[in-house]
């Protein structure tokens, strides 16, 4: 059994000497990669924000040796459910013809980092 854990640093948090990071960008263990919840700071257009967040997820997945097509489980946290359809427009197709399972909720004012959407992901390694 491979018990090793590999952690990819979060590139979005400023590196301050002598301070521990809050979170990793992605963590790999047992053939799975866990991608941190990604946001889009300051972007007020939900389609653009969704695309930007999914681009961040894709980058983490590739960096860790996986891909959008190998994503298994996604959680979407939205600021406002009114934008559900617009979010779906930008989301559809990004994970290929056989997308991962997904859970979506809105958390009204509950997403940190001035983002209107946050998405995390679990995927299988190649």
């Amino acid at each position, binding site marked *: *059994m*491979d018990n090793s854990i590999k952690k990819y640093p979060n590139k979005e948090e400023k590196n301050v000497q002598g301070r521990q990071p809050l979170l990793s960008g992605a963590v790999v263990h*047992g*053939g*799975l990669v866990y991608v941190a919840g990604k946001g889009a700071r300051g972007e007020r257009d939900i389609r653009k924000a969704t695309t930007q967040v999914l681009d961040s997820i894709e980058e983490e997945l590739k960096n860790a040796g996986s891909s959008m*097509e*190998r994503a*298994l*489980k*996604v*959680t979407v946290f*939205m600021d406002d*459910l009114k934008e*559900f359809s617009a979010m*779906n427009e930008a*989301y*559809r*197709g990004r994970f*290929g*013809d*056989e*997308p*991962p*399972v*997904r*859970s*979506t*909720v*809105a*958390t*009204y004012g*509950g997403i940190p980092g001035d983002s209107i959407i946050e998405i995390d992901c*679990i995927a*299988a*390694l*190649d």
Partner: protein
Amino acid sequence: MGYTDQKNSRRTAIKSMFAAVVATGAGMFGIASAKSTGSAKLEKSPGKDTAIKKYPDKEFVHQGRQPLFSGSTVHDGFVFVAGKGEHGEGDIKVHTKKVLDKIEEELNRAGSSMEKALQVNVYLHNIRDYDGMNEVYRGRFGDHPPARSTVACYSGIPGNSLVEIDCIAAL
């Protein structure tokens, strides 16, 4: 079913390994009949099962477009079940029962069961439904239920569902 077909040839060889891993896991979760084989050994390669199986969502109409999500995904002994909601009439008890029925159906379809669920997230429309949800929830996953996280997200559940539940389980 790209990945499934591609990697089908590997599946048979891996099945016995799966069984051993599941048995070891089950021991940890207190399922009495499960016994660790002790000899099971997972190696990165060759023989590491990288196959992914995705069961299509049956509830929503995708109108010829790419679907937004699958009903469940299976990989390396795990089943990931989509967040399920209930979009019909009824109170929290009705919704919770129907949502758990949907979860159970997905788990069974993927070759798992409620008793093999490992981790569950419950999203409530309103925290005042907590007790009602629990009443229906209790016992549905057997005597040794999965880990659970519950939060309320006021009006934040799509499709007017009073509760949304997702789940990770062992095969």
